[in-house]
């Protein structure tokens, strides 16, 4: 095994990991604030179709900036979709599980409706950040050969980790997720903070979606995220709600998925492929069980996760 081989494999891992890392980072913040939004898949698809549409329609007028406009469009669209969820669960106190599922179904339907006229069209792929002499270097490309979204994903997860653990605002957000009633009584605007978290989660899910329609394949096709939103949810569970573990976990999932492909292409079929496909979900449940077993205080999920909060109760 030589160095070039390892680098090639790493590039694959990074490509597989980035969209789930982006979506899961957003969902982590949402869940940390005590809200469970199961609609990630729907928001991703809305982001995917919007990003593609913006990049396509402004491709001529904006030139090199069109993909950036697409990413921003995807973020705005994802956030807008999450606000639908936000109004229902935060202002109207509806059930989060049901509302999240409704958002997922809604996003799948809406994105195919919007995208119907874009099928078969192509945009410029958004896959190079650095100049050729860096991006195409056989060794350097492992660091420099990626789409800007790859770097954004890494920056965002580190920033979120710092925000949650080392800033006052992050502490407040966590307090809201752990004990909304006390946070409210000390005077923190619980609902407003949760709105912000949900919007952030929606925006990142939207960007994650745009990774499919602008980086992996510069086109739109229905349900092109192929269930990654659900894997992102599993990843948040797997990370036991820590940003550091989320980053490690995302790459662990990515390596697992890539290993499956390597095993198949090399002719090692020692396990049925379905076992590999089920792995992320099995691991998520296993981690959840182990974490809970170790910590007598219960799972490390934010204590208010999924519980509605109406300040005047």
């Amino acid at each position: 095994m030589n160095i070039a081989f390892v680098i090639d494999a790493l590039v694959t891992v990074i490509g597989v990991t980035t969209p789930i890392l982006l979506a899961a980072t957003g969902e982590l913040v949402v869940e940390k604030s005590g809200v469970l939004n199961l609609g990630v898949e729907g928001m991703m698809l809305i982001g995917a179709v919007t990003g593609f549409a913006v990049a396509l329609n402004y491709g001529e007028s904006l030139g090199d900036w069109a993909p950036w406009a697409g990413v921003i469009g995807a973020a705005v669209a994802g956030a807008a979709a999450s606000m639908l969820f936000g109004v229902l669960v935060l202002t109207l106190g509806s059930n989060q599980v049901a509302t999240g599922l409704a958002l997922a179904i809604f996003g799948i339907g809406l994105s195919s409706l919007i995208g119907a006229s874009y099928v078969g069209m192509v945009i410029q792929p958004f896959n190079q950040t650095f100049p050729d002499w860096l991006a195409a270097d056989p060794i350097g490309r492992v660091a420099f050969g990626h789409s800007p979204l790859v770097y954004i994903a890494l920056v965002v997860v580190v920033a979120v980790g710092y925000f949650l653990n080392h800033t006052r605002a992050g502490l407040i957000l966590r307090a809201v997720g752990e004990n909304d009633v006390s946070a409210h009584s000390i005077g923190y605007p619980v609902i407003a903070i949760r709105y912000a978290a949900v919007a952030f989660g929606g925006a990142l899910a939207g960007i994650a979606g745009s990774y499919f329609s602008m980086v992996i394949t510069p086109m739109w096709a229905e349900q092109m995220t192929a269930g990654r939103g659900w894997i992102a949810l599993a990843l948040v569970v797997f990370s036991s709600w820590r940003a550091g573990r989320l980053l490690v976990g995302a790459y662990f999932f990515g390596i697992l998925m890539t290993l499956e492909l390597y095993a198949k292409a090399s002719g090692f079929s020692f396990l049925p492929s379905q076992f590999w496909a089920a792995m992320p979900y099995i691991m998520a449940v296993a981690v959840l069980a182990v974490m809970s077993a170790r910590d007598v205080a219960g799972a490390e999920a934010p204590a208010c996760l999924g519980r509605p909060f109406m300040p005047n109760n």
Partner: protein
Amino acid sequence: MRIRLEKRLTPSRIMQVATPIASVLLTMLLGAVIFELIGFDGPDAIWQTFITPIVAPYKWVDVLTKAAPLIIIAQGLSLGNQAKIWNIGAEGQYVIGALAGAGAAFAMPADAPSFIAIPAMIVAGILGGMAWAAIPALLKTRLRVSEVLSTLMFVYIAMQVLNYLIGGPWKDPNGHNFPQTPPFSPTQTLPHVIPGTVIPPGFVIAGVLTLLFWLLTARSVYGFSVRTVGAAPSAARYGGFDASRTVWSTLMISGGMAGLAGILEAMSQLGQINLGFPSGYGFTAIIVSFLGRLHPIGVFLAGLILAVTYVGGQVAQTAVHVPEATAGIFQATMLFFILASDILVRYRLRIVRDPRRTAPVGVPA
């Protein structure tokens, strides 16, 4: 002057009935407007989606066939939801139930008489669904692992179990090497409809179960304990209702119902299991449960309404050429409305002149 919300002492009966109806009507209205905007004949599209399946008799079989699994699964889920136990993995329990029932079918001689084969498969189906729900129940009661997350994860694991079995050990030897199980024998299948009627056997079971669930929730101590655990966990503990027993029983019942729906579907529809078997009933049943406001009779009606939108979505596709995606949008919109209006059940809207408020609601203005 501002609108203020006041918590009701008891949920409003009128609102409980009125809001689901209003949700359906609002969805129809919104749907008509959206269809007009995107260039279809709005009223016609809505008519085809929501009314044609009800008034066209030849669609009744289809509506009842779709409604049966939705109602059966949603009855089980509603019971758990009353206790605030959220089983969102019914889709997985449905798949495993069907597989367990199929396993029973393959284990017995193909010519075993119906009166043995069918009950055996049904029991195996129920047990399969229960077994798949038992793992989250165990994790919840022993390790306090959230059942919302674990049941969802197990849906995806169940899908892979299905893919593995139908493409490997259970692959039909006469199936041209396509991933599917062998067909059940004639004594292992149920007819699509009860001969001479338009009623599928599954729908009869759904009707009987509706009655049983109504008796269970409204007339039994168990039903009361479930509601109490959901509404006031500490009071329930004080009253001697064991929370972990509630977790177990509701997950076993909802898992068993999903498994039952799965094996009934496999026995009475295709008579085998293929890659296309998981059809999303387990997820749609969650919508049914909420649309029915967790009440057995409401769930029964909501199952029929959802079935109408499924069948109507197909009618509208062939008749008015609206894209298939709109059926999903309708289902989601209906659920959005019902969830949004939930607040009217629990709160009273009051217009007050005094701007001073002691208890703020919602987003700060």
